[in-house]
């Protein structure tokens, strides 16, 4: 079996083995130096080799494993070390885990996004663990003069059963450091049937620190002599400072610096604004209240949500600007269809709103900018800081700090550029902390969108035509970030006559990826409309979907890769209808779909969605009172993310969290714009789902033969259409607009 994970084996990494001062073994995996030079310009020759090694084993038997990726609540700091510990046969209960810093010479893929950590690192991490084990076994074989093949390992001990000899990893570590490093490409790995740790429920490594209030988040970073900073930007994105009363601000109690930052024009970089720095963040906020700025708001100050909606309505009746895909003859098929359904779906801009507002601590000294960041893309952050300050990437040191949620917001590194600039300007260590209002009003929002669907079913209830005119944001052939529609969106390849078309309008608001980007919005529109087609077909909505999945067209030939394009992350994989049918059938069975007579006002809805290589089908049961009050009674989720659920404890959390996150989006989340600026600023006007609204979420897995993939995102998209489809089943009301807080759900 060839999998996308296996195709990653070609990484040109090599192991470096060192003896630790005082004895013991240290194992590091290095990216090919040439490639590292290509990527970051030069190797940091002075790097301390004891830092950022994957595995350290000291003579006292302590095994320390480095977690290399940003921890944003997805459990990666626990999961990646589990992969190493599994093949190492370390005693997980005593393994110590340390967070690695950004180090492109030793680590790859130090990012949190796209549910990529599992497919990217599942094999490489295991190989590192297997290599360390092989060296310890080799040391024992040499010491006892027995073949390595006669040795077994378990919980940090090497055993030779025949001679009843045992040695701890600690006692072997110094000798193991003299063994040749195995070749990572050929090191044998365990048969998954032998796994002792992978597939078992393990708790969050940092659990005790979290529940006892240890300072472990970005906002908690303290550096000696540190000052606190606020950065005030124009409410209209990209606006610049014309005048500001910085002299008056500087004279206020506790304030040490106040100055104008000119900023650039890219909304993803350093924007113009006023920096205020002082001895205490609250004092800085008091000074901020007295700040008077006149802004040059720029060309986008007239943008508004009302304007976007009016423009969308205008574009919807004009011929589409572009064709994204066309199969067959949709118009002819619609003309001959037994039933034609037309519907417009609308979803809003939403904000990431991680509970820890953006922050970053920076110290610029002797030409080096040292940073403590919660970024999901620290390597990108380093590059942005370097280009903003006009220094080289190797002059930027990034310490990776636990983040209080990410959801995609920390894929952008604007706050890093701001902190770095302020640190350089002041020459003192600075902790930049955004207020909640800064965070909500200067997000990279999930863009809103408008879909104008037309579908046709024949007399047998089969879908014969499907058209979407997607009205979105962008310019020319370029969609705004996360505002695009791919040509492979389902039901492409499952309906013979299909057209995806688009029109765009310009946008002066920053947008970006939010947990299951694109999919979190497209799922609602497409799979709500597919439910309408099921009704038109007179079929059971779940069976209708199985029938649709059974109508797959032949796949088109794969597009050739661009010449010279470097491999980057796991290859995209196609949608496998058999895997989706599997989860759909399983969710039918576990939810009791169609088996229970529900009273009027209560209904079940179903949807499936493929994103980030994961297959999820979900059923929502919802009750709507005659007065229109909605209660989500229960959600059943079935996922197929391949052959192993590495840590079922955190996997369940991610699915439950993603499902409730999706419900939260559907219920009340919306950012609107007026005068070019966001109208919502805090949790009083931007409502997140709270405990009372959280339904039970039953999670099931369908294990398949495929390589394991990630679960941070794919459970989110299907719950939104499943909810609106449940509301239809309960009330007969079809919801074509979210958030639901704006929809009248009363029924009689």
């Amino acid at each position, binding site marked *: 079996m060839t999998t996308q994970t296996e195709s990653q084996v070609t990484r040109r990494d090599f192991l470096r083995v060192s003896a630790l001062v005082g004895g013991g073994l240290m194992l590091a995996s290095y990216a090919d130096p040439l490639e590292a030079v290509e990527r970051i310009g030069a190797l940091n020759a002075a790097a301390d080799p004891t830092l950022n090694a994957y595995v350290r084993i000291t003579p006292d038997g302590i095994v320390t494993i480095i977690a290399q990726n940003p921890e944003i609540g997805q459990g990666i700091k626990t999961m990646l070390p589990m992969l190493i510990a599994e093949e190492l046969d370390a005693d997980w209960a005593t393994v110590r885990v340390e967070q690695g810093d950004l180090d492109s010479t030793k680590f790859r893929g130090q990012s949190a996004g796209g549910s990529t950590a599992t497919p990217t690192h599942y094999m490489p991490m295991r190989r590192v663990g297997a290599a360390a084990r092989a060296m310890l076994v080799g040391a024992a074989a040499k010491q006892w003069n027995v073949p390595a093949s006669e040795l077994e390992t378990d919980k940090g001990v090497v055993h030779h059963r025949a001679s009843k000899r045992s040695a701890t990893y600690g006692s072997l570590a110094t000798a193991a450091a003299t063994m040749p490093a195995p070749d990572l490409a050929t090191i044998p790995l365990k048969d998954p049937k032998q796994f002792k740790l992978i597939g078992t429920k393990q708790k*969050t490594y940092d659990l005790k620190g979290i*529940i006892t209030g240890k300072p472990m*988040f970005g906002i908690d970073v303290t550096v000696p002599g540190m000052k606190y900073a606020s950065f005030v930007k124009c409410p209209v994105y990209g606006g610049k400072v014309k005048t500001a009363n910085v002299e008056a601000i500087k004279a206020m109690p506790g304030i040490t610096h106040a100055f104008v930052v000119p900023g650039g024009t890219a909304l993803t970089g350093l924007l113009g604004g006023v920096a205020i720095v002082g001895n205490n963040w609250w004092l800085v906020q008091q000074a901020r209240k007295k700040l008077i700025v006149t802004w040059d708001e720029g060309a986008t100050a007239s943008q508004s949500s009302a304007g976007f909606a009016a423009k969308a309505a205008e574009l919807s009746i004009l011929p589409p600007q572009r064709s994204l895909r066309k199969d067959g003859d949709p118009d002819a098929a619609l003309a001959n269809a037994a039933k034609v359904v037309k519907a417009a779906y609308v979803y809003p801009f939403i904000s990431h709103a*991680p509970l820890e507002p953006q922050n970053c601590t920076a110290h610029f000294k002797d030409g080096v900018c040292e940073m403590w960041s919660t970024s999901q893309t620290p390597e990108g952050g380093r590059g942005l800081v370097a280009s903003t300050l006009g220094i080289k990437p190797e002059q930027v040191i990034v310490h990776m700090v636990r983040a*209080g*949620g990410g959801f995609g917001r920390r894929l952008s590194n604007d706050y890093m550029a701001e902190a770095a600039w302020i640190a350089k300007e002041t020459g003192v260590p600075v902790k930049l*902390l955004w*207020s909640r209002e800064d965070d909500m009003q200067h997000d990279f929002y999930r863009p809103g969108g408008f879909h104008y669907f037309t579908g046709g079913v024949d007399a047998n209830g089969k879908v014969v035509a499907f058209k979407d005119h997607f009205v979105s944001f962008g310019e020319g052939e370029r969609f705004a970030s996360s505002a695009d529609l791919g040509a492979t969106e389902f039901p492409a390849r499952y309906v013979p006559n299909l057209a995806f078309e688009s029109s765009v309008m310009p946008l002066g608001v920053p947008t970006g990826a939010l947990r299951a980007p694109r999919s979190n919005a497209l799922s609602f529109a497409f799979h709500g409309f597919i439910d309408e087609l099921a009704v038109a077909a007179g079929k059971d909505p779940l069976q209708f979907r199985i029938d649709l999945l059974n109508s797959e067209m032949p796949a088109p030939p794969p597009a050739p890769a661009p010449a010279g394009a470097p491999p980057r992350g796991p290859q995209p994989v196609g949608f496998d209808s058999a895997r989706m049918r599997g989860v759909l059938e399983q969710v039918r069975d576990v939810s009791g779909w169609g088996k229970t007579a529900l009273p009027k006002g209560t209904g079940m809805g179903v949807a499936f969605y493929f994103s980030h290589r994961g297959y999820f089908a979900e059923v929502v049961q919802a009750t709507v009172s005659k007065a229109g009050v909605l209660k989500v009674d229960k959600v059943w989720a079935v996922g197929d993310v391949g052959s192993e659920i590495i840590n079922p404890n955190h996997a369940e959390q991610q699915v439950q969290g993603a499902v409730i996150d999706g419900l939260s989006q559907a219920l009340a989340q919306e950012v609107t714009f007026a005068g070019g600026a966001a109208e919502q600023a*805090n949790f009083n006007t931007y409502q997140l789902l*709270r405990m009372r609204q959280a339904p039970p979420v039953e999670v099931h897995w369908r294990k398949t033969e495929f390589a394991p993939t990630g679960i941070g995102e794919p459970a989110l998209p299907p719950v939104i259409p499943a909810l609106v489809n449940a509301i239809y089943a309960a009330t007969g009301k079809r919801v074509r607009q979210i958030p639901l807080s704006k929809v009248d759900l009363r029924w009689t």
Partner: protein
Amino acid sequence: MAISLKVNGTVRTIDVPPEMPLLWALRDELDLKGTKYGCGVSRCGACTVHVNGVATRSCQTPVSRAQGADITTIEGLSPDGLHAVQKAWKELDVPQCGYCQAGQIMAAAALLSKTPKPTDAEIDTAMNTNLCRCATYLRIKAAIHRAADIKASAPMTGTGGANKPGSPDPR
């Protein structure tokens, strides 16, 4: 001005404006970083501490009003994590990112001190103003029920069964 605060049993004096919220005095003056800033307007609960045993939003409590009161933060609930609520949180591995959890734990501990055996509805009412952006609500609710059981099986004096020695924990 000089403000004296009794935090986790210790009186400490700081020189800050009387209107400074307790949250920032705790975090930036007393270096107790466990209490978190989430919204600054009493809408998320991340800053929840106990003031005379009552769950209180420290972001909306001026230090002048906290003078003379017994203030307990997450660091003082039980430094070893042995309060019944912390034990239950650990047993069920409640947190995801963990940022809101100090506030959740403090709110839950205050609930259990008044209502030793809360119903689901009572938990919803007491906890509804504590946001969890990762949506760990299902485990929070289960952990509060579990903490109630832990407290009931090992009743202790003081703030909630916090001081029973447990086995040393490597983590």
